[in-house]
């Protein structure tokens, strides 16, 4: 590679089709710089897990090339495996063994000598607040504890590149925060993290760069702020109560502001892009007064990644499960 800083992950034109199906990945390109947290964001069936499985040497692909930590995934899978940590979409810890036994087991399979494996297990149990439950079977762990253990297992060998496939799906808000904190800690210690998620908020909070994928292709990429530029500025939104004439209200707003607002008949909202001028708010306040509405019905809405996704794909991330 010619660049002086070698990317931690590099995917070039990777395509994959499963037997008897159309292309699941369709020329996917991805560059992840070392030490960054990179989000792979997409709805169900977008190809996130497929991408992670390819990068973690679990799955062959049909076209393109893939490197992780400077090693070719196809030509040097062992080299890749020695440098990565993986926490899959579903936790894969052994239910019948205790947290400590799980960690020691995988540490031994990572070829740590027995004594080192024991020390490493104790370390990780402390670090992930699992020490009190260390010797209980995992069967009795909560979802959050399992996730943390799974994460701990994936960190046994201090991986250069860590893959987390939907690490917080199914967690309550508190456990989610704990996982987020762990990811931040890792990132600050220089580990590269590729994280897939369906939660736009998660990508927004954790990732320095985000690739939105849909139908096996990157449809948008950048840092969260850049992506938000796709959909433009903050908007002022007026909710029109049930039983009032929505179109009439829209015309009234248009007269005050000078342009027709965007109209959402389902949500019964009218929205106007804010161009930074304070007078728009005054004009809107005027329109509200004339309509007999209070400022309660006026809200400012910053665009979030949901809006970006909607804008780029024409669909929301929710509302469509399996393809």
């Amino acid at each position, binding site marked *: 590679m010619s660049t002086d800083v070698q990317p931690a992950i590099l995917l070039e034109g990777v395509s994959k089709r499963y037997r008897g199906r159309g292309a699941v990945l369709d020329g996917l390109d991805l560059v992840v710089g070392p030490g960054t947290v990179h989000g792979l964001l997409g709805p169900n069936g977008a190809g996130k897990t497929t991408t992670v499985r390819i990068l973690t*040497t*679990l799955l*062959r692909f049909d076209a393109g090339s893939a490197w992780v930590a400077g090693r070719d995934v196809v030509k040097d899978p062992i080299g890749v495996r020695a440098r990565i940590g993986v926490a*899959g979409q579903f936790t*894969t810890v052994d239910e019948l*063994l205790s947290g400590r*036994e799980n960690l020691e087991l995988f540490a*031994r*399979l990572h*070829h740590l000598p027995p004594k080192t494996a024991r020390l490493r297990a104790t370390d990780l149990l402390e670090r992930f607040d699992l020490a009190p439950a260390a010797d209980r079977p995992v069967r009795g762990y909560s979802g959050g504890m399992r996730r943390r253990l799974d994460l701990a297992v994936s960190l046994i060998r201090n991986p250069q590149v860590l893959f987390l496939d939907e690490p917080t799906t199914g967690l309550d808000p508190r456990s989610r925060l704990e996982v987020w904190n762990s990811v931040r800690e890792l990132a600050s210690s220089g580990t590269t993290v590729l994280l897939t998620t369906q939660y736009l908020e998660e990508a927004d909070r954790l990732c320095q760069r985000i690739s939105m994928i849909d139908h096996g292709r990157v449809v948008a990429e950048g840092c969260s702020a850049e992506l938000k530029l796709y959909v433009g500025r903050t908007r002022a939104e007026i909710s029109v109560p049930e039983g009032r004439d929505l179109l009439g209200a829209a015309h009234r707003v248009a007269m005050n502001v000078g342009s027709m607002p965007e109209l959402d008949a389902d949500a019964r909202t009218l929205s106007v892009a804010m161009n930074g001028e304070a007078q728009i708010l005054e004009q809107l306040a005027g329109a509200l007064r004339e309509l007999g509405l209070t400022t309660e019905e006026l809200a400012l809405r910053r665009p979030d990644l949901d809006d970006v996704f909607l804008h780029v794909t024409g669909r929301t991330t929710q509302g469509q499960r399996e393809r």
Partner: protein
Amino acid sequence: MMTALSPTTLAWAASDTWVVARRHLMRLLRRPDELLGTLLIPVMAVVMFGFVFGEALGAGMAMSGSDYRAYLLPGLFTLSMAFGIGTTTMSVATDMRSGVVDRMRTLPLWPVAMLAGRSLADVLTALVELAILLPLGMLAGWRPDGNAMTVAAAIGLLVLLRLALSWTGILLGLLVSGPEAAMKYFALVFPLAMVADTIVPTTLMPSWLTVLAQWNPLSATVNATRGLFATSAGSADSWVSQHAELLAIAWPVGITVVGLMLALFRLRQLSR
């Protein structure tokens, strides 16, 4: 610990295999009822075939009930080795489903070790099973008449059969769609275990079945162990039963080699 860690690949392979085997053994210790469940089949078979139907089956073979039981028990030891295939298949299918197999595939681990560990655990479990079943058999009136060497050889053949069926179970576990399916296929063990010299001599079966039953790998192990335990000569009137000892080695070794190769092939196929 089996190995002091040395940088040679072979030492890693041995260490990996042992670590995986130990995991399976620990799981077994956490669920002792599963081991008991496996033992229940041969024990129940002693009660049913030995005592309930014993007189009738013995009469059919011109034997007394107690002679029949002495004849029966080596068959049940073999049968118990065969039934272990269910545990193996379930375990591998469960690890496939839960993602443990995938997780291990992302480790810098010798792929054979992942499977060989299961097989080592099976062999060690088989030894425990036999350590329980042989004394139980003696309670039921069976006596090993051979010397220590031949008894050890018989036990060796039984464990070798278990090894072969362990690799068959591993292959099946990698092929079935999940643990539920593995459960359903379990019924197939019955013809494998019983259309053989295990419960009644194959010579008493319908003639078209006799040939099949005589060539059943289990028949070779049963007849060879009967010979080594020297409890009963068995039905040594065909080429197959005259060469039982040879076949009791050749069959399991062949099955192990083929099973291992197919299982590794299947493991590689998982990345399609």
